[in-house]
Protein backbone atom coordinates (compact mmCIF):
# COMPACT_ATOMS: atom_id res chain seq x y z
CA UNK A 1 0.00 0.00 0.00
CA UNK A 2 2.79 2.40 0.98
CA UNK A 3 4.70 1.41 -2.17
CA UNK A 4 1.59 2.21 -4.19
CA UNK A 5 1.19 5.64 -2.61
CA UNK A 6 4.88 6.46 -3.04
CA UNK A 7 4.57 5.53 -6.72
CA UNK A 8 1.48 7.77 -6.94
CA UNK A 9 3.40 10.62 -5.31
CA UNK A 10 6.25 10.14 -7.81
CA UNK A 11 3.73 10.35 -10.66
CA UNK A 12 2.26 13.55 -9.18
CA UNK A 13 5.68 15.21 -8.99
CA UNK A 14 7.08 13.95 -12.31
CA UNK A 15 8.29 16.86 -14.47
CA UNK A 16 6.76 17.33 -17.92
CA UNK A 17 10.03 16.34 -19.65
CA UNK A 18 9.34 12.61 -20.22
CA UNK A 19 5.79 13.28 -21.43
CA UNK A 20 6.98 16.07 -23.73
CA UNK A 21 9.69 13.75 -25.09
CA UNK A 22 7.06 11.11 -25.93
CA UNK A 23 4.80 13.71 -27.57
CA UNK A 24 7.51 15.40 -29.62
CA UNK A 25 8.91 12.05 -30.77
CA UNK A 26 5.43 10.97 -31.91
CA UNK A 27 5.11 14.24 -33.84
CA UNK A 28 8.53 13.66 -35.43
CA UNK A 29 7.51 10.08 -36.33
CA UNK A 30 4.29 11.31 -37.96
CA UNK A 31 6.11 13.91 -40.04
CA UNK A 32 8.88 11.46 -40.99
CA UNK A 33 6.25 9.01 -42.20
CA UNK A 34 4.79 11.63 -44.53
CA UNK A 35 8.19 12.85 -45.78
CA UNK A 36 9.42 9.31 -46.45
CA UNK A 37 6.13 8.46 -48.20
CA UNK A 38 6.51 11.48 -50.50
CA UNK A 39 10.18 10.69 -51.18
CA UNK A 40 9.30 7.03 -51.82
CA UNK A 41 6.71 8.13 -54.34
CA UNK A 42 8.78 10.76 -56.18
CA UNK A 43 12.39 9.57 -56.12
CA UNK A 44 12.99 6.39 -58.09
CA UNK A 45 16.24 5.25 -56.40
CA UNK A 46 14.74 5.96 -52.97
CA UNK A 47 11.64 3.99 -53.90
CA UNK A 48 13.68 0.90 -54.78
CA UNK A 49 15.79 1.37 -51.62
CA UNK A 50 12.60 1.27 -49.53
CA UNK A 51 11.56 -2.18 -50.74
CA UNK A 52 12.35 -4.14 -47.56
CA UNK A 53 9.68 -6.74 -48.35
CA UNK A 54 9.02 -7.44 -52.02
CA UNK A 55 5.31 -8.35 -51.74
CA UNK A 56 4.57 -5.14 -49.80
CA UNK A 57 6.87 -2.91 -51.87
CA UNK A 58 8.20 0.51 -50.81
CA UNK A 59 5.53 0.83 -48.11
CA UNK A 60 7.51 -1.70 -46.02
CA UNK A 61 10.65 0.45 -45.96
CA UNK A 62 8.82 3.76 -45.58
CA UNK A 63 6.89 2.60 -42.52
CA UNK A 64 9.82 0.71 -40.97
CA UNK A 65 12.11 3.76 -41.30
CA UNK A 66 9.43 6.10 -39.92
CA UNK A 67 8.86 3.83 -36.92
CA UNK A 68 12.63 3.59 -36.37
CA UNK A 69 12.94 7.42 -36.56
CA UNK A 70 10.09 7.78 -34.04
CA UNK A 71 11.60 5.30 -31.56
CA UNK A 72 15.13 6.72 -31.86
CA UNK A 73 13.82 10.28 -31.39
CA UNK A 74 11.83 9.12 -28.34
CA UNK A 75 14.87 7.40 -26.82
CA UNK A 76 17.14 10.42 -27.35
CA UNK A 77 14.60 12.99 -26.11
CA UNK A 78 13.64 10.86 -23.11
CA UNK A 79 17.29 10.57 -22.05
CA UNK A 80 17.71 14.33 -22.31
CA UNK A 81 14.44 15.39 -20.66
CA UNK A 82 13.83 12.56 -18.17
CA UNK A 83 14.32 14.72 -15.08
CA UNK A 84 13.65 18.13 -16.57
CA UNK A 85 10.75 20.44 -17.10
CA UNK A 86 10.56 21.81 -20.62
CA UNK A 87 8.55 24.58 -22.23
CA UNK A 88 4.88 23.81 -22.77
CA UNK A 89 5.45 24.89 -26.39
CA UNK A 90 6.93 21.43 -27.03
CA UNK A 91 3.41 19.96 -26.86
CA UNK A 92 2.18 22.56 -29.35
CA UNK A 93 5.09 21.77 -31.69
CA UNK A 94 4.27 18.04 -31.40
CA UNK A 95 0.64 18.69 -32.39
CA UNK A 96 1.76 20.86 -35.32
CA UNK A 97 4.12 18.12 -36.55
CA UNK A 98 1.31 15.57 -36.25
CA UNK A 99 -1.02 17.86 -38.21
CA UNK A 100 1.59 18.35 -40.92
CA UNK A 101 2.20 14.60 -41.07
CA UNK A 102 -1.52 14.02 -41.43
CA UNK A 103 -1.94 16.59 -44.21
CA UNK A 104 1.16 15.51 -46.12
CA UNK A 105 -0.08 11.93 -46.35
CA UNK A 106 -3.14 13.19 -48.29
CA UNK A 107 -2.26 12.43 -51.94
CA UNK A 108 -3.47 15.72 -53.55
CA UNK A 109 -1.24 17.64 -51.09
CA UNK A 110 1.68 15.18 -51.38
CA UNK A 111 1.49 15.53 -55.19
CA UNK A 112 2.27 19.24 -54.91
CA UNK A 113 5.93 18.35 -54.21
Amino acid sequence: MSAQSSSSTEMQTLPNGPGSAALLAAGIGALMLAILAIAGDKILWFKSMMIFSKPTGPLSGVTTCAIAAWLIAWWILDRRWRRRSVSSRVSVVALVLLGLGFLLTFPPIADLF
Partner: protein
Amino acid sequence: MEITTRGLLTLIHGMGFGALYLMACSGALVEIYRCCHAQTGPQNDDRHDLFLANYLTAMAAVAWLAVLSGTYIVYPWYRATPPAGTTDLAGFPQRLLMASPATAGWHSIGMEWKEHVAWLVPIAITMAAAVCRRYGGGLKSHRELRTAVLGFVWASLLAAGVAGFFGAMLNKNAPVQGGTTMRIMEGGEK
Protein backbone atom coordinates in the same frame (compact mmCIF):
# COMPACT_ATOMS: atom_id res chain seq x y z
CA MET B 1 -22.46 -18.99 -47.48
CA GLU B 2 -18.85 -19.12 -48.54
CA ILE B 3 -15.77 -17.06 -47.87
CA THR B 4 -12.25 -17.28 -49.21
CA THR B 5 -9.20 -17.30 -46.91
CA ARG B 6 -8.10 -13.92 -48.32
CA GLY B 7 -11.60 -12.55 -47.74
CA LEU B 8 -11.58 -13.87 -44.17
CA LEU B 9 -8.18 -12.37 -43.36
CA THR B 10 -9.26 -9.04 -44.87
CA LEU B 11 -12.36 -9.21 -42.69
CA ILE B 12 -10.24 -9.87 -39.58
CA HIS B 13 -7.98 -6.93 -40.49
CA GLY B 14 -10.83 -4.47 -41.12
CA MET B 15 -13.78 -5.59 -39.05
CA GLY B 16 -11.74 -7.25 -36.35
CA PHE B 17 -8.84 -4.93 -35.60
CA GLY B 18 -9.87 -1.75 -37.45
CA ALA B 19 -13.49 -1.53 -36.32
CA LEU B 20 -12.57 -2.62 -32.79
CA TYR B 21 -10.06 0.23 -32.61
CA LEU B 22 -12.61 2.77 -33.82
CA MET B 23 -15.13 1.61 -31.23
CA ALA B 24 -12.54 1.69 -28.45
CA CYS B 25 -11.53 5.27 -29.34
CA SER B 26 -14.63 6.92 -27.93
CA GLY B 27 -14.09 5.08 -24.63
CA ALA B 28 -10.46 6.21 -24.51
CA LEU B 29 -11.36 9.84 -25.14
CA VAL B 30 -14.00 9.81 -22.40
CA GLU B 31 -11.65 8.01 -19.97
CA ILE B 32 -8.73 10.40 -20.57
CA TYR B 33 -11.02 13.37 -20.08
CA ARG B 34 -12.58 11.85 -16.97
CA CYS B 35 -9.23 10.81 -15.52
CA CYS B 36 -7.94 14.36 -15.75
CA HIS B 37 -11.05 16.15 -14.53
CA ALA B 38 -13.04 13.87 -12.20
CA GLN B 39 -12.91 14.57 -8.44
CA THR B 40 -12.38 11.16 -6.78
CA GLY B 41 -10.46 9.79 -3.82
CA PRO B 42 -6.77 8.78 -4.15
CA GLN B 43 -7.51 5.02 -4.05
CA ASN B 44 -10.10 5.29 -6.81
CA ASP B 45 -7.69 7.45 -8.76
CA ASP B 46 -4.99 4.76 -8.67
CA ARG B 47 -7.41 2.07 -9.84
CA HIS B 48 -8.82 4.25 -12.61
CA ASP B 49 -5.36 5.37 -13.74
CA LEU B 50 -4.25 1.73 -14.03
CA PHE B 51 -7.43 0.87 -15.92
CA LEU B 52 -6.86 3.72 -18.37
CA ALA B 53 -3.21 2.74 -18.92
CA ASN B 54 -4.23 -0.90 -19.56
CA TYR B 55 -7.10 0.17 -21.84
CA LEU B 56 -4.80 2.34 -23.96
CA THR B 57 -2.16 -0.42 -24.07
CA ALA B 58 -4.80 -2.86 -25.38
CA MET B 59 -5.81 -0.26 -28.00
CA ALA B 60 -2.17 0.12 -29.02
CA ALA B 61 -1.90 -3.67 -29.46
CA VAL B 62 -5.04 -3.66 -31.64
CA ALA B 63 -3.68 -0.73 -33.70
CA TRP B 64 -0.36 -2.52 -34.31
CA LEU B 65 -2.19 -5.71 -35.30
CA ALA B 66 -4.37 -3.70 -37.72
CA VAL B 67 -1.48 -1.96 -39.51
CA LEU B 68 0.81 -4.99 -39.57
CA SER B 69 -1.88 -7.34 -40.88
CA GLY B 70 -2.93 -4.71 -43.42
CA THR B 71 0.58 -3.95 -44.64
CA TYR B 72 2.06 -7.43 -44.69
CA ILE B 73 -0.91 -9.75 -45.29
CA VAL B 74 -3.72 -7.93 -47.13
CA TYR B 75 -1.81 -5.24 -49.07
CA PRO B 76 0.39 -7.70 -51.04
CA TRP B 77 -2.79 -9.39 -52.33
CA TYR B 78 -4.24 -5.99 -53.21
CA ARG B 79 -1.19 -4.83 -55.21
CA ALA B 80 -0.39 -8.16 -56.86
CA THR B 81 0.69 -7.85 -60.50
CA PRO B 82 -1.27 -10.01 -62.99
CA PRO B 83 0.70 -12.15 -65.44
CA ALA B 84 0.97 -10.70 -68.95
CA GLY B 85 -2.17 -11.23 -71.00
CA THR B 86 -4.54 -11.54 -68.03
CA THR B 87 -7.97 -10.24 -68.93
CA ASP B 88 -9.89 -11.18 -65.78
CA LEU B 89 -8.58 -8.76 -63.12
CA ALA B 90 -10.88 -10.02 -60.34
CA GLY B 91 -7.91 -11.39 -58.36
CA PHE B 92 -5.90 -8.15 -58.77
CA PRO B 93 -7.85 -5.37 -56.98
CA GLN B 94 -5.40 -2.50 -57.64
CA ARG B 95 -5.27 -3.23 -61.39
CA LEU B 96 -9.02 -3.72 -61.48
CA LEU B 97 -9.61 -0.28 -59.92
CA MET B 98 -7.09 1.42 -62.18
CA ALA B 99 -8.56 -0.15 -65.31
CA SER B 100 -11.52 2.24 -65.21
CA PRO B 101 -11.46 6.04 -64.77
CA ALA B 102 -14.63 5.69 -62.69
CA THR B 103 -12.82 3.64 -60.03
CA ALA B 104 -9.16 4.73 -60.39
CA GLY B 105 -9.58 7.40 -57.69
CA TRP B 106 -10.31 4.74 -55.09
CA HIS B 107 -6.72 3.63 -55.56
CA SER B 108 -4.91 6.88 -56.38
CA ILE B 109 -6.49 8.78 -53.49
CA GLY B 110 -8.14 6.16 -51.28
CA MET B 111 -5.47 3.47 -51.01
CA GLU B 112 -2.56 5.91 -51.37
CA TRP B 113 -3.85 7.87 -48.36
CA LYS B 114 -5.02 4.88 -46.33
CA GLU B 115 -1.77 2.93 -46.56
CA HIS B 116 0.19 5.81 -45.00
CA VAL B 117 -2.24 7.62 -42.72
CA ALA B 118 -3.15 4.38 -40.91
CA TRP B 119 0.42 4.20 -39.54
CA LEU B 120 -0.16 7.41 -37.56
CA VAL B 121 -2.62 5.45 -35.40
CA PRO B 122 -0.20 3.07 -33.60
CA ILE B 123 2.34 5.90 -33.18
CA ALA B 124 -0.25 8.18 -31.54
CA ILE B 125 -1.93 5.59 -29.32
CA THR B 126 1.33 3.94 -28.19
CA MET B 127 2.55 7.38 -27.11
CA ALA B 128 -0.75 8.06 -25.31
CA ALA B 129 -0.56 4.71 -23.50
CA ALA B 130 3.05 5.33 -22.45
CA VAL B 131 2.32 8.84 -21.15
CA CYS B 132 -0.78 7.72 -19.23
CA ARG B 133 1.13 4.78 -17.70
CA ARG B 134 4.05 6.99 -16.70
CA TYR B 135 2.06 9.89 -15.26
CA GLY B 136 -1.19 8.31 -14.08
CA GLY B 137 -3.21 10.92 -12.18
CA GLY B 138 -0.17 13.20 -12.35
CA LEU B 139 -1.43 14.25 -15.80
CA LYS B 140 -3.92 16.45 -13.93
CA SER B 141 -1.09 18.79 -13.03
CA HIS B 142 0.25 19.00 -16.62
CA ARG B 143 -2.48 20.68 -18.61
CA GLU B 144 -0.42 20.98 -21.79
CA LEU B 145 0.48 17.26 -21.76
CA ARG B 146 -3.06 16.02 -21.31
CA THR B 147 -4.40 18.42 -23.96
CA ALA B 148 -1.75 17.21 -26.41
CA VAL B 149 -2.39 13.54 -25.56
CA LEU B 150 -6.11 14.10 -26.16
CA GLY B 151 -5.21 15.77 -29.47
CA PHE B 152 -3.17 12.74 -30.53
CA VAL B 153 -5.99 10.35 -29.59
CA TRP B 154 -8.46 12.49 -31.60
CA ALA B 155 -6.02 12.41 -34.54
CA SER B 156 -5.74 8.63 -34.23
CA LEU B 157 -9.53 8.37 -34.36
CA LEU B 158 -9.59 10.52 -37.50
CA ALA B 159 -6.76 8.54 -39.14
CA ALA B 160 -8.42 5.23 -38.27
CA GLY B 161 -11.70 6.59 -39.63
CA VAL B 162 -10.06 7.56 -42.94
CA ALA B 163 -8.38 4.15 -43.19
CA GLY B 164 -11.60 2.34 -42.26
CA PHE B 165 -13.76 4.30 -44.71
CA PHE B 166 -11.41 3.78 -47.66
CA GLY B 167 -10.80 0.16 -46.67
CA ALA B 168 -14.53 -0.52 -46.79
CA MET B 169 -15.00 1.34 -50.10
CA LEU B 170 -11.99 -0.32 -51.72
CA ASN B 171 -13.21 -3.74 -50.69
CA LYS B 172 -16.67 -2.90 -52.01
CA ASN B 173 -15.34 -1.81 -55.42
CA ALA B 174 -12.59 -4.41 -55.78
CA PRO B 175 -12.71 -7.08 -53.07
CA VAL B 176 -9.59 -8.98 -52.11
CA GLN B 177 -10.39 -12.55 -53.13
CA GLY B 178 -8.60 -15.84 -53.55
CA GLY B 179 -7.20 -18.76 -51.62
CA THR B 180 -9.19 -21.66 -50.31
CA THR B 181 -12.94 -21.29 -50.26
CA MET B 182 -14.57 -22.13 -46.95
CA ARG B 183 -18.24 -22.97 -46.62
CA ILE B 184 -19.65 -21.31 -43.49
CA MET B 185 -23.16 -22.76 -43.67
CA GLU B 186 -25.69 -24.09 -46.11
CA GLY B 187 -28.42 -21.72 -47.23
CA GLY B 188 -31.87 -22.96 -48.18
CA GLU B 189 -34.52 -21.57 -50.50
CA LYS B 190 -37.31 -19.63 -48.79
